[in-house]
């Protein structure tokens, strides 16, 4: 009796191990390694590209005041909690930086003063080979077919490996529930919960009807490029 029960437990243990190993083996076996249930719906008028890119004409943004409306628009569209006071909990999608911080390896004593003192916008670079995607253990951060780095915050386990991996400090983590700190909630765009990561994924709302990530549809509100009526930001395929 005792013996057969032990035997049963042994078999149950080995079976559980086998079941646990199955998705792991699948991951190595399948060519499309995006994980089960991965699906991207294309918008009707979706434009396609191999790698979307965005250029910012910094000559037209000489002062911090000039950056403000751009930052404010991004924050508003994407429900960024701007009212968080504790600096440790700060969420940043697009922010202003000094030349020395934006281009750490390109400083010298004889810089063009105009360039050196100009404020620069920092945001996710949507790298061609993104370290955050490489580090993510659940494919919650992934690169879509258009080259945009995206984030599925419903899959994210909050390990923050992507934050350590990003060489541009572009990732933020919801150290607390961000919702009470969002000024005007944009109903066209999802809010996040505590304990998940985000990058400036949706600077892509500047892309004309780009394809949407699994969790939500593309916003129809004025995108960043629409707000920047001057030709400061240009998007294109490269």
């Amino acid at each position, binding site marked *: 009796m005792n013996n057969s029960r032990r035997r049963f437990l042994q078999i149950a243990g080995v079976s559980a191990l086998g079941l*646990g190993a199955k*998705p*792991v083996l*699948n*991951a*190595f076996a399948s060519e499309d*390694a995006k*994980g*089960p249930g991965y699906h991207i719906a294309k918008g009707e008028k979706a434009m396609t590209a191999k790698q979307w890119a965005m250029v910012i004409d910094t000559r037209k943004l000489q002062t911090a005041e000039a950056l403000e409306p751009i930052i404010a628009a991004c924050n508003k569209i994407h429900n960024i909690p701007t009212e968080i006071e*504790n*600096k*440790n*909990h*700060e*969420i*940043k999608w697009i922010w202003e*930086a000094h030349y*020395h*911080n*934006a281009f*750490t390896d390109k400083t010298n004593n004889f810089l063009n003063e105009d360039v050196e003192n100009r404020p620069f916008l*920092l945001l996710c670079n949507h790298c061609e080979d993104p*370290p955050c995607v*490489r*580090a*993510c*253990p*659940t*494919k*919650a951060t992934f690169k879509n077919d258009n080259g945009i780095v995206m984030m599925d915050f419903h*899959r*994210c*386990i*909050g*390990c*923050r*490996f992507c*934050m*350590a*991996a*990003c*060489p*541009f*400090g572009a990732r*933020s*983590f*919801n*150290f*607390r*529930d961000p919702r009470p700190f969002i000024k005007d909630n944009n109903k066209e765009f999802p809010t996040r919960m*505590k*304990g*998940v*990561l985000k990058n400036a994924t949706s600077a892509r709302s500047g892309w004309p009807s780009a394809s949407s990530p699994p969790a939500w549809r593309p916003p129809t509100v004025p995108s960043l490029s629409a707000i920047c009526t001057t030709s400061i930001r240009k998007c294109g395929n490269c």
Partner: protein
Amino acid sequence: MLELAVKGNKWYWGWVVVLLGIIGAGFGLYMMQLKFGLGITGMSRDVSWGFYIANFTYLVGVAAGGVMVVLPYYLHNYKAYGKITILGEFLAIASIVMCLLFILVDLGQPMRALNVLIYPTPNSVLFYDAIVLNGYLFLNLVIGWNVLEAERNGVHYQGWLKPLIYVSIPWAVSIHTVTAYLYCGLPGRHFWLTAILAPRFLASAFAAGPSLLILLCLFIRRFTNFDPGKEQIQSLAKTVAYAISINVFFFLCEVFVAFYSNIPGHTTHIKYLFAGLHGHGALVPWMWASMILMAAGIVLTVTPATRKNETSLMLACMVIILGTWIDKGLGMISGGFVPNPMHEVNEYAPTMPEIGITLGVYAIGALVLTVLYKMAVGVKEEAHS
């Protein structure tokens, strides 16, 4: 064998109750963290891993350190260690349990932890870390338990255990190598971006793990009827002497490369840790204390007189545990994040709830270790009486 762990004197039960109290308090704080989010810790956008991951890293080392008794016994047939391999294996089990718990309490969405299995991602080092840590836990449980049971029954352990034992030796090296790869493959973090990180982790592991084992052996001899043996303790002490010397040597290699090349990305973190940067230097006294402690550890373990005297050896083990813990637990993780990739300095210090949760995890590890060692010592006492 578990029945051996439920028979104990009042000191044993008193200790268990104390640990349960700490675990309870830690659990309460963890409930707070679960409700509010990781914002109750001192972590931030810049220092996104803190005390939990640092202690995780340290304990992976302690777990790997157990191999320093397993390897000489099984590969070199060093018979003396036969008496204490079980102590090394059970220490590894308790350490890995703590490691896994530290990962769990560090997750922003712990209820989604199994996503790592549901969406396995072979390009993430965390995927391999999950495999090697759980594998090492499994190996040590199976090997430790069966070898101890065989000893209790007065028979040789089962033949099929032998291959598992051989696998467990490189596996111990793998757990700390993969843990180092979590850090040293990240492009923007120059403090970790060094090929010597895994060797350095292993050196510090083989100093800290056996040091703790020596202290545990001395404790067991003092308070139970089982003597792990003078020769065993002395052999372990020699391992510690080599490992701590190599650990400091590796660190000095890092210092040379950083400062002779004078590449800013490499020097800036070491400057932050040992001299402070832009007026921020919370870790400076700690790092110097760590260096002094490790240097003292080298002197005490390399000098034959102080190594052979068990009182000074005990002191040596304590300073080495403390020194390596500061080096890895405080400096290694914070040091990699400060300054951040934009060269901004935002420091990190753990908060009280964060320390409380950490202590709770350590208490769980201590409880697991207490129960396992109670069994092991019980079997040894039976066998030698």
